[in-house]
């Protein structure tokens, strides 16, 4: 691995001991990844923010690193933490947890990381451009940036992303290189994928099919149309988020849609070593259903909702009021816009609360008394049972809104039910 004069100096401590430690981490990761050199990054996104995930040892490490005095030299953004910094009391979060969460945020602020607290920095901060090199770590953000935007980032961990922030560099390998972005598998889709939760189901199955591909699976999807309407971006976001969760996928190509596939689809396809087919989403709907009882809350915004998604949700409610609590997770920057325009107030009147700085996957749900959740997110449906011991009704946003307004049944009379055989449904999951 070749370090430039500058990088060698940083390693030797020219920018302080915090940056030297950062460069030591990057150099080791570069050797492991087979990088020849470092590349400068435009921005950084740091995961490992929720106290629930990193625990007391992670907090102490961040405090120690911040104490070394080095700060981010490129724009760097925090992933969600475990608590809404404004609404935590109303949402029933324990004060002790919120206090520890604030200590993590303070340590990261000390490292010069911005408290965006979102998994969608592309909604809450300047959107990266095609070909930009980044060091992002939240898995759905990585997949979106690589696939939909055509920027270039590996799947960073918390410490390696911070290291990139403190030095402005990351080792150039894998998804930073043309060769490392070639697809491993062509996925022929033989069923309709009309709405956002369907895209999540397809992503979940794609991730499963590619989980064991060498060098990390990169699918080239064909035979499926992304919606042309306002749901297009959410659809692409849900597709990537689910395959990142189930198969650690950091990049997908979608024929005619994602920038690299649109520019050179046939060449990309020729590079894939194998072909698989997805003929139905039914298996995903079955496996992602884990509710053990009536949902305590309906959760949207995994990944965090954009302003367009909030507008659409408002239209789906059409002024009607939900009889089950509805949480819509988003970035604080997006929530403030929605508050300013009056949309947040109108959603609140429908029983939908905008929750920021955290998400359904990393919030301490058990402490909040949540046992079952209804969601349109395949990513959330994948993680909640194993990470939180929470059961999930996975269904479309349209169906979940209708159920929330009617007070149930969830997974009831709408489209998703046709795909879910009666026998596979746990007792008591509905009304």
């Amino acid at each position, binding site marked *: 691995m070749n370090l430039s004069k500058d990088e060698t100096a940083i390693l030797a401590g020219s920018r302080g001991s915090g940056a030297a430690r950062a460069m030591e981490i990057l150099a080791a990761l570069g*050797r*492991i990844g087979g990088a020849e050199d470092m590349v400068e990054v435009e921005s950084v996104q740091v995961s490992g923010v929720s106290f629930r995930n990193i625990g007391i*040892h992670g907090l102490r490490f961040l405090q120690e690193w911040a104490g070394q005095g080095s700060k981010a030299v490129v724009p760097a953004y925090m992933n969600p933490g475990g608590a809404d910094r404004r609404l935590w009391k109303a949402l029933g979060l324990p004060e002790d947890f919120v206090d520890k969460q604030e200590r993590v945020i303070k340590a990261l602020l000390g490292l010069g990381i911005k408290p965006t607290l979102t998994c969608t920095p592309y909604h809450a901060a300047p959107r990266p451009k095609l070909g930009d090199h980044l060091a992002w770590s939240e898995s759905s953000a990585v997949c979106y940036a690589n696939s939909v935007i055509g920027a270039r980032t590996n799947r960073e961990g918390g410490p390696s992303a911070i290291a990139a922030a403190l030095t402005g560099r990351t080792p150039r390998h894998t998804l930073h290189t043309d060769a490392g972005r070639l697809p491993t598998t062509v996925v022929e889709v033989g069923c309709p994928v009309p709405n956002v939760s369907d895209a999540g189901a397809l992503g979940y199955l794609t991730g499963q099919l590619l989980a064991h591909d060498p060098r990390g699976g990169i699918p080239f999807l064909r035979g499926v149309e992304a919606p042309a309407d306002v749901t297009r971006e959410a659809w692409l976001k849900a597709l990537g988020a689910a395959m990142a969760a189930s198969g650690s996928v950091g990049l997908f190509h979608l024929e005619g849609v994602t920038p690299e596939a649109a520019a050179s689809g046939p060449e990309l396809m020729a590079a894939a070593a194998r072909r698989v087919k997805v003929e139905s989403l039914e298996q995903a709907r079955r496996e992602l259903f884990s509710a053990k009882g009536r949902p305590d809350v309906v959760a949207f915004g995994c990944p965090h909702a954009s302003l367009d998604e909030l507008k659409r949700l408002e239209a789906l409610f059409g002024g009607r009021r939900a009889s089950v609590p509805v949480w819509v997770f988003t970035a604080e920057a997006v929530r403030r816009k929605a508050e300013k325009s009056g949309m947040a107030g109108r959603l609140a009147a429908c029983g939908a609360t905008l929750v920021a700085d955290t998400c359904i996957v990393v919030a301490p749900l058990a402490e909040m008394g949540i046992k079952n959740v209804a969601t349109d997110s395949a990513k959330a449906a994948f993680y909640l049972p194993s990470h939180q011991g929470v059961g999930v009704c996975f269904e479309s946003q349209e169906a979940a809104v209708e159920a929330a307004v009617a007070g149930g049944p969830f997974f009831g009379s709408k489209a998703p039910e046709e795909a879910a055989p009666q026998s596979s449904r746990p007792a008591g999951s509905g009304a």
Partner: protein
Amino acid sequence: MKGRLISKGAARGPVLKSEAPLGFFGHLDPETGVYKEAGHPLDGRCVKGAVLVFPRAKGSTVGSYILYALRQTGNAPAAMVLRECDTITAVGAIIGGIPAVDQVDISKLHDGAEVMVADGSVTEA
């Protein structure tokens, strides 16, 4: 044996070897240094002061912080030798200040043997 440098420094100790990957998060207790995973070759063994020899890590990336925590509690292994180092172990070794080397033929290292790890190489002590 010459390997690839992952984390700098020199240390010696007795080999504690696992042919199976290690999952630091959830299995290795920083307060005691004891590895707990039913059916795992290191189940019940303490890593403190040992030269930990294993193929690679598995599981959560939060595992890096466990290696850091072991250093804080005084229960860290003296050094680590891997077949092919992963990013969890590399980051953990550097932030925990634990010397580490990989791309070593670990079949030649036997449990209990006293070895020295120094800047990318492993020698019998």
